[in-house]
């Protein structure tokens, strides 16, 4: 879907990106992460030519991005940013319909698409359609921002710290929704963050950058279990690597089907980290597990958390 070949970007005598090569496959949820100044946002903005690279090549669906007019290229990519940037003088419907209008979609198709996207982002279409951004909470505004980015069915969605300015509860809900949307639509997503927990939760692949170079690229599990060097180990947080590993696995991965236990059950799709929290908080070593249909599916023991993946 997107390929960087030996890409570089220099501002004066400061090298922002140095010989970066990366392939983002179709359907991947690729998270770019790194400290400030690591080049993660520059990398993202080079994809839709908000920043022009000055060395190497960037390919989009097999073609050099310079072979497209910048506006045409951007209309095929969704773009959501931390500051959201909703048009204050347009309603929610007009904001979401912005790119489809640029592409000349008929009115009825835009309207249907807006209805669909509002539903997808858990905003009641009839309640929110005609509101102005100033009448929305921060979380609702970013939902509209994401809906706007998804409006024209882009083949790739670029997100620059989209949840960075939200409160933890809203951020958590929106992260869950992004996972759901990614699963349902299969859209390729490239997301920039500086929050390692967000990267571990969302990414099917994590790319860690430092000083304009890729330090390590791999699945969350690979990053956590085999950090390439001390920088990565420090960045992911040495002390709670174990906790973070628990957070990427589901209870259903380790549970014992058919076994029973006493007490309030845990959902099968909850994370092992959640299970550990319940074990410690309740001072127990067994938890009943209920499946998606709400029926008891088995149990999980404290000792199950320490085994390798099954």
């Amino acid at each position, binding site marked *: 879907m997107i390929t960087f070949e030996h890409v570089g970007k220099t501002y004066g005598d400061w090298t922002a990106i140095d010989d970066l090569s990366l392939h983002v496959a179709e359907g991947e949820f690729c998270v770019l992460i790194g400290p400030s100044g690591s080049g993660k946002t520059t990398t993202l903005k080079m994809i*839709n030519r908000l920043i022009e690279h000055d060395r190497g090549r960037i390919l989009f669906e097999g073609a050099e991005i310079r072979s497209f007019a*910048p506006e045409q290229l951007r209309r095929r990519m969704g*773009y959501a940013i931390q*500051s959201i940037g909703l048009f204050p003088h347009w309603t929610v419907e007009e904001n979401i319909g*912005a790119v489809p209008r640029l592409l000349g979609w008929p009115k009825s198709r835009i309207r249907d698409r807006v209805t669909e996207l509002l539903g997808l982002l858990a905003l009641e279409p009839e309640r929110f359609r005609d509101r102005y951004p100033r009448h929305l909470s921060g979380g609702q505004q970013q939902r509209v921002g994401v809906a706007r980015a998804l409006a024209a069915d882009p083949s790739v969605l*670029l997100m620059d710290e989209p949840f960075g300015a939200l409160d933890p509860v809203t951020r958590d809900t929106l992260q869950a929704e992004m996972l759901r949307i990614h699963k349902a639509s299969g859209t390729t997503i490239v997301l920039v963050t500086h929050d390692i927990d967000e990267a571990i939760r969302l990414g099917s692949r994590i790319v860690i950058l430092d000083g304009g170079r890729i330090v390590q690229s791999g699945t969350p599990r690979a990053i956590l279990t085999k950090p390439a060097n001390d920088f990565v180990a420090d960045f992911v947080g040495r002390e709670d690597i174990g906790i973070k590993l628990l957070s990427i696995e589901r209870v259903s991965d380790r549970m014992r089907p058919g076994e029973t236990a006493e007490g309030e059950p845990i959902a099968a799709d909850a994370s092992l980290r959640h299970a550990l929290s319940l074990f410690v908080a309740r001072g127990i070593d067994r938890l009943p597990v209920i499946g998606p249909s709400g029926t008891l599916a088995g149990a999980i023991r404290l000792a199950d958390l320490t085994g390798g993946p099954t």
Partner: protein
Amino acid sequence: MLKNRVLLLLVAVGLAAAAGLAFVTHAPNRLLSGQAVSWAIVLGAGRWMALLPALPLVVGPFLPQSRAVHLVLAVSAAALAASLLWLAGDVAIRLADTATPSARTSFGGAFWLIEAMAALAAADALQRGISNPAARITIGAVLILPILAVIGGGAIDQLSIMKEYANRRSVFATAVATHLAIVGATLLPTLGIGLPLGVLLDRRARLRRPVFAVLNIIQTIPSIALFGLLIAPLAGLVAFAPLLGRIGISGIGATPAIIALTLYSLLPIVRSTTAGLEQVPGSVVDAATGMGMTPAQIFRRVEVPLALPVVVAGLRVTVVQAVGLTAVAALIGAGGLGAIIFQGLNGSAIDLVLLGVVPLVAIAITADIALKLAVTMLKMRSG
């Protein structure tokens, strides 16, 4: 106990003016200064009842400040303004019966001060009582109707200012039309040059300092000096190219007036255009660029609508300033209401001066209120 200090102050000033200054003055002819006509004559034979609308205003500062109270106060203040006008006109009619035709009855200091206090009280009550700006202006316009009815109905025709008007009916109409035409003719080049220049300065920050320096210097030149400075070069230009003279351009008259007024008007328009574009949030422009709008689309669909309230606010300053400066342009033969004012000043005929000043103030206030309303409505639309 005391609920509204503003109104209390207005009432106090009004009462002090009534006690210390003349309401109307009477003189045997227009050149002599008038003698005060006593309140006893003005209010005799039951005419004191015309002052009843003042009662709510006197107790108003001590009433609970509810919406209904504010509405009553606004109506009372407007009614008082109309009835004072009627009282002055009525005295003039009675005095005219007993005096020679050249005798003059004029408004006194107390009349002007109390009218001003009543206008402020009405505006203040509307401001406090009605939050919707469009409704506030509509009600304000309705409240002015009784005053227009008193003037239109001939009740003040025997007052000196209206006698001056009767003598100069056609001159007055021409003056108002010329005045408005000069202001309108100034706005065309002002917007034609000012808007593009403002956009340019938004895009090229380096040009801002020098351009604003020049516009600021122009603003500090006294208007009379700038009008005068333009006479010689324009006259020379016309001597050089007589064709210009034939299409109406000359060293005196409307041409230098419009050029000078345009130069003055550029600063507020350019500054508000640049400021309006600058306050468009960067995140909104970033998002628009990132979703694939062209620079022209961003300008037309995003920047212009979001900058418009600030630009119109600048236009408001420009128009009010141009209405006032056009009066001075009469000195170089541009005509307009200024011609009437200067004629009155030369002849020491204060009422003739007022005949020029009152409509001038009315035009400026009307333009100010209309454009202020436009700004409020634009702001409500664009958030």
